[in-house]
C-alpha cells in the first residue's frame, strides 16, 4: 500500500500544526485552570471546519476521508493536550448517525454536531461493565410513542455538556431475545438527567469524564438509531473508528515523546558530552523512532481499509493491540531520558506518559481487542 501524502494531506497537516501552535496553548491553559473544556471549544473547531470529516456535505460535513482526520489528530497528539477528545467525538458520532440514522434523524442531529452547536457523546459503559452488553442495566421501557430511560452510565465523556448522545440501553421490549440492546439518541439536557462531578484521572488532564443518571427520561421512538436490538452493533462499529482515531492521537504523543527525548539528549551533558552520544541512549532513540514509525503505519493501514469501505473491525483491533504497549513504552523511555526532570511537571514527557496510559483502558480495553484479534485468527480459514 502506498502511503505517500497528497498535497491535500500535507495541507491538512499544516493547518493542524498551525491550530496546535496558535490556538491549543490557550485552550490548554483554560483546561489546566478550570479542569474542563472551554465552553467555546467546539466553535473553534467549527470555525476551522474540523467537524464532520466523513459526513456528507448536505448534513454540514466535509465529505472527506478518515485518513485526513487521523492526520489532523496526530498533530493534536503532539501537544499532549486532551482538547482533541471532543473533536474526535463530534466527528465519530456524526458519522455514526449518518450510517445508521433515518433521513429525519440525520437531518435533525447531524448538522448541530458539524457546526459545533452540540457536544456529542457515545455511552455504553456502566458501573458493572465496560465490555459486555449482556450486563447492561440502564433500561428503556416502551411507553406509547416513547421510551422511558432509567439507570446510569459511567465514565462518559462530555456527558454533562449540552448536545446529543448515543446511549446504548437494555431494551425491555426485547426482553428474553438474544440481542436486547438498542441505541437511543438523547438530548443530554432532557428532564430527568443529572451528572456526577468529573473523575480525577491519571492523565487526559482537564477531561470532563463523569457519570450520567437517568430518572424516567422520556425519549421519542424516532430517536432510535438503527433498529431495535442493534445497539451493540452501533457501538462496535463506532468504536472501530474511534480506536483508530485514538491511536492516531497516541502516535502523535509517542512521536513528540521521541522528539523531546532527542532534544534533551543533545542538551544534557553527561560524562563530558551530550548524553545522546552514549550508545545506550542513541540505541533507545533508534528504538523509539522505529516503534512510532511502525505504529503510524498500522494506523494508516487500518484507516485506509475504513475509507475503502472494507470491514475494518479486526484491523482496528490490531491497531490497539500493537500500538498501545509500544507507545506507552516510548513515552516511558522518554521520561527515563530526562532523569528526574522527566518525572516532574516541568517537562512535557511526564504529561505524554500519563496520557498514553489511557489507550489501554478507554475506547475498549486492550484485552478485549486481543480477544477480537485472537478469535478472528482462530475462526479464519
Amino acid at each position, binding site marked *: 500500500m502506498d502511503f505517500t501524502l497528497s498535497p*491535500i494531506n500535507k495541507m*491538512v497537516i499544516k*493547518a493542524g500544526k*498551525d491550530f496546535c501552535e496558535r490556538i491549543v496553548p490557550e485552550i490548554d491553559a483554560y483546561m489546566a485552570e478550570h479542569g474542563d473544556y472551554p465552553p467555546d471549544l467546539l466553535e473553534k473547531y467549527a*470555525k*476551522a*471546519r474540523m467537524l464532520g*470529516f466523513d459526513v456528507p456535505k448536505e448534513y454540514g460535513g*466535509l465529505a472527506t476521508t478518515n485518513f485526513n482526520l487521523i492526520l489532523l489528530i496526530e498533530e493534536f497528539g503532539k501537544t499532549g493536550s486532551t482538547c482533541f477528545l471532543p473533536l474526535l467525538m463530534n466527528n465519530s458520532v456524526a458519522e455514526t448517525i449518518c450510517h445508521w440514522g433515518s433521513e429525519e434523524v440525520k437531518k435533525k442531529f447531524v448538522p448541530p454536531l458539524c457546526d459545533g452547536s452540540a457536544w456529542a457523546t457515545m455511552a455504553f459503559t456502566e458501573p458493572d461493565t465496560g465490555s459486555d452488553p449482556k450486563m447492561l442495566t440502564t433500561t428503556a421501557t416502551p411507553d406509547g410513542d416513547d421510551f422511558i430511560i432509567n439507570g446510569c452510565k459511567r465514565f462518559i465523556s462530555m456527558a454533562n455538556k449540552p448536545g446529543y448522545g448515543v446511549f446504548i440501553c437494555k431494551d425491555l421490549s426485547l426482553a428474553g431475545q438474544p440481542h436486547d440492546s438498542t441505541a437511543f439518541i438523547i438530548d443530554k439536557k432532557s428532564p430527568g438527567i443529572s451528572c456526577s462531578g468529573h473523575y480525577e484521572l491519571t492523565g487526559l488532564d482537564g477531561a470532563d469524564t463523569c457519570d450520567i443518571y437517568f430518572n424516567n427520561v422520556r425519549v421519542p421512538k424516532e430517536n432510535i438509531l438503527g433498529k431495535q436490538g442493534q445497539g451493540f452493533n452501533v457501538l462496535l462499529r463506532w468504536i472501530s473508528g474511534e480506536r483508530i482515531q485514538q491511536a492516531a492521537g497516541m502516535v502523535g504523543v509517542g512521536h513528540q515523546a521521541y522528539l523531546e527525548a532527542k532534544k534533551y539528549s543533545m542538551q544534557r551533558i553527561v560524562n563530558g558530552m551530550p548524553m545522546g552520544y552514549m550508545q545506550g541512549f542513541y540505541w533507545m532513540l533508534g528504538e523509539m523512532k522505529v516503534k512510532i514509525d511502525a505504529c503510524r503505519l498500522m494506523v494508516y493501514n487500518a484507516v485506509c481499509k475504513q475509507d475503502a469501505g472494507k470491514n475494518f473491525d479486526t484491523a482496528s483491533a490490531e491497531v490497539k493491540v500493537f500500538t498501545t504497549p509500544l507507545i506507552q513504552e516510548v513515552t516511558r523511555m522518554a521520561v527515563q531520558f530526562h532523569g528526574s526532570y522527566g518525572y516532574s511537571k516541568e517537562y512535557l514527557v511526564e504529561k505524554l506518559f500519563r496520557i498514553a496510559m489511557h489507550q489501554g483502558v478507554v475506547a475498549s480495553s486492550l484485552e478485549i481487542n486481543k480477544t477480537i484479534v485472537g478469535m478472528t485468527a482462530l475462526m479464519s480459514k
Partner: protein
Amino acid sequence: MKIIVTIKQVPNVTKVKWDADGSLIRAGLPTIINPVDKHAIEAALELKEKHGGEVIVISMGPGQVESALREALCMGADQAIQLTDRKFAGADTWATSYALGCAIKKIGDYDLVISGVEAMDGNTAQVGPQMAEFLGLPLLSYALGIESDGKKVQIQQKLGDFERKIEADFPALVTVEKEINEYRVTPMDKILEAFEKEIPVWEADDVDAELVHLGLKGSPTKLRKVFSPKIEKGKVQMLEGTPEEIARQVADKLNEKFLI
C-alpha cells in the same frame, strides 16, 4: 466587493546565500507566504465576508509560487493568478510593481488592492506604494485596521508614535501591518476546494507588459555587490601598570574613540 491581494513567496530561513551575480539562491530553500501577506489575505477575506464579493490573489515569481497561491486558496481566496515568465526574473521593486500593476489592470474592475507593508526578504516596503502610483490609486499604507461601507475604505494608519484615520473612495490600495488581524487557521473545507481550482499562469504578454520595463533589464536599481557584513572577532588588549595608570589609559582610549 472585488479585492485583489498581492502576495510574495519568501524563503523561510534566517540566513540566505547569493550567487556570483548577487541573486538570491532560492533552489532547495523552504518557502512560505511572506508573513504579513497572510494578514493581507485575512483582511480581504473579512471584508468579503461582510460585504460579499470575491478575493483574487496574485503572485509574481518562479514556478514554485504556485504553492503560496494554493495556500491562499486554502485560506479561502476565490481565485489565484500566477505571474511566471523568465522575462520577469531579476526584477527590482520598480519592475516588480510594474509587472504586478499590469496584471492588476488586466484583472480590472476591482475595488481594492491589498498588499503587505513589506516583504520579509527584500524589506523595501516599496512595492505597495509603487503599484498605487502606477495604477493611479489613492494609497492607504501601514494599516492597523480596515473598514469599508462598500464604497469607501477607511484605515487606522500607523505613523511612528501616533496613529490616524484616513479614508479614500474605491478603488484604492491598502498596505497592511501584521497587527491588523489574527489570520485564520486554514479551514478544512477550503483546503478540499482549493485543490480543485485551476491557477492560471500569466506571462508578460498576457498582461500587456512592455518588455523594456521587465525583469533585470527593466530594473533601474543595479546591484553592485551583495555581501554579508563581516563580524569582527572581539580583540582584547591587556592594560598594565598601577590602577591609576590603567585608569588613565582607559580614559585615553575612550577619548580616542570619541566615546567620552
